[in-house]
Each structure stands twice: as structure tokens, then as C-alpha cells.
């Protein structure tokens, strides 16, 4: 029987790439009888979906005036012949 440690690895892996048939079967068997890993899987998928939504949004922070000025100068330096 697969350990929870291994099951958790496969759950993370499944968010990245399709699992092999063997992996799917052994993970399916494990989560079938392990409520904790079922929960971990559900919550991992939730985090994945939320992350994808949040990726399209941004914190409300702006460039400081100093940074803006520094970047402007760097651009001037780069564009001067």
C-alpha cells in the first residue's frame, strides 16, 4: 500500500503533468481508502484553481518616484548615441 508521503507527491505531480496509468491506479486505490489524502487532493486542486485566478490580478503597489526616475535615466543612457 502506497504511503501518504508518496500519494501527496503524486497529487502534486498530477497538477503538473498527466499521471501514468500505473500512478493513477495506485493513487486511486490510496485515496479510495485514505480520507486525509482525499482532503489533501481536494484542497490542492482548490489552491491550483485559485492561483490561476489570482495570477491575473496584481497587488496595488506602484513604482516609487525614485525607481521611476532611475529607470528613466537608464533608458536615456541606453538611447543616447
Amino acid at each position, binding site marked *: 500500500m502506497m504511503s501518504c508521503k508518496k500519494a501527496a507527491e503524486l497529487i502534486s505531480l498530477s497538477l503538473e503533468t498527466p499521471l501514468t496509468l500505473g500512478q493513477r491506479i495506485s493513487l486511486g486505490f490510496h485515496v479510495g481508502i485514505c480520507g486525509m489524502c482525499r482532503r*489533501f487532493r481536494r484542497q490542492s486542486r482548490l489552491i491550483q484553481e485559485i492561483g490561476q485566478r489570482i495570477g491575473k490580478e496584481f497587488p496595488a503597489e506602484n513604482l*516609487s518616484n525614485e525607481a521611476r526616475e532611475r529607470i528613466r535615466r537608464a*533608458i536615456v543612457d541606453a538611447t543616447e548615441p
Partner: protein
Amino acid sequence: MSDEFPVSVKADPDHWLSEHGDHLFRHAMARVGRRDVAEDLVQETLLAALKAVHEFAGRSTERTWLVAILKRKTIDWLRRVHRVQFCTDLADGDPWLDAQFDWTRHWAQAPGRWGGDPAVLCEGTEFRRIFEDCRQNLPERLRTILSLRLLDDVPAEQICSALDITSANLWTLLHRARVRLWNCLDKKGLARGKP
């Protein structure tokens, strides 16, 4: 304020800075979490755009084009600053992760009950704050690598080749990041009161 590409594409870095500077900065901040690094990335992005303006064929909006350059610069930064350390991380293993499991390799502590509809959860400001706190509190290397995959969907191959690691290495690092993020959310009682 326009996202549209100009009819005739010409290098106009002053316009880029004033129109897109804050957007690029926020994008970078959300990935790297450090003002100094984010500011440098904005500067590098605009300088690179200046050199590559002839490649910008107006197929996308100006902003999309600049963000694509910013993503590449973020990966470059990760490579430059952290590449060697990633190898050490991989060689060292992850005692924190090991400690989440007992000697039988089952969960040392049962995960709490939480969940819900992501669309609804994302609307709640309290939930958003907790999620972002937890993401920002990840160790720097893990945070950036997870953000590139999770938030930006940067292809895994691109990250692997920049860092000279195998995809199995990348999955290992992402797993470490994911369990930490999940653990933090679990500890903070995410979605308290929800089934």
C-alpha cells in the same frame, strides 16, 4: 490609457514607462516579492524591449509584449541568483517536508476541513489576504518557481532549461512549494466555518 498597440510601432520607452511601468512592477512584485528586484526587472524589461522593438510586430498588445519580456527576465533573474542554490536544495532534501509525515510515512497531522468554491473564495478579501500572505511567505526560491508555474503558466521546459534541472527535479521543488503553501493555508484556518 490604452492597451492597444500603436499603428506604427516605434520605440517609445518613456511612454512604456508611464503607461505600463506600474503594471510591470506589480506583476514582478507578485512573483519575486521584493521591491528592489522588481524595480530592476522593470528596468531590464524596458531596456530589452528597446533593443527588440523591431521584433514587436503588433501581433499582441504593447502591454502583453512587455509582460512576456518581463517573464523572461524573471526567469533570467532566477537563474542568475538562485541556480546554484537550487542544486544544493535538491541535494539536501527537505527535512521540513519529511517532518509532515510520521515514521510510517502517513500524515503526522490530519489536514483540517476546508474548501469551497474557488470563484466565491477569490471574491472574499480576507481569504485573498491569507492566500497572498501564505504565498509571499514561501521561501524565496520556491515562491518564485511556483508563481511562474501557477500564476503565469510558464512552460516547465523553459524553467528546467534555465535552471539546468530535470523535470523530475522541478516537480520535486514544486511539490515542496505546494505542500508549504497548503500547510500555511491549513494552519491559518482557511475558509473557517466552511465545510
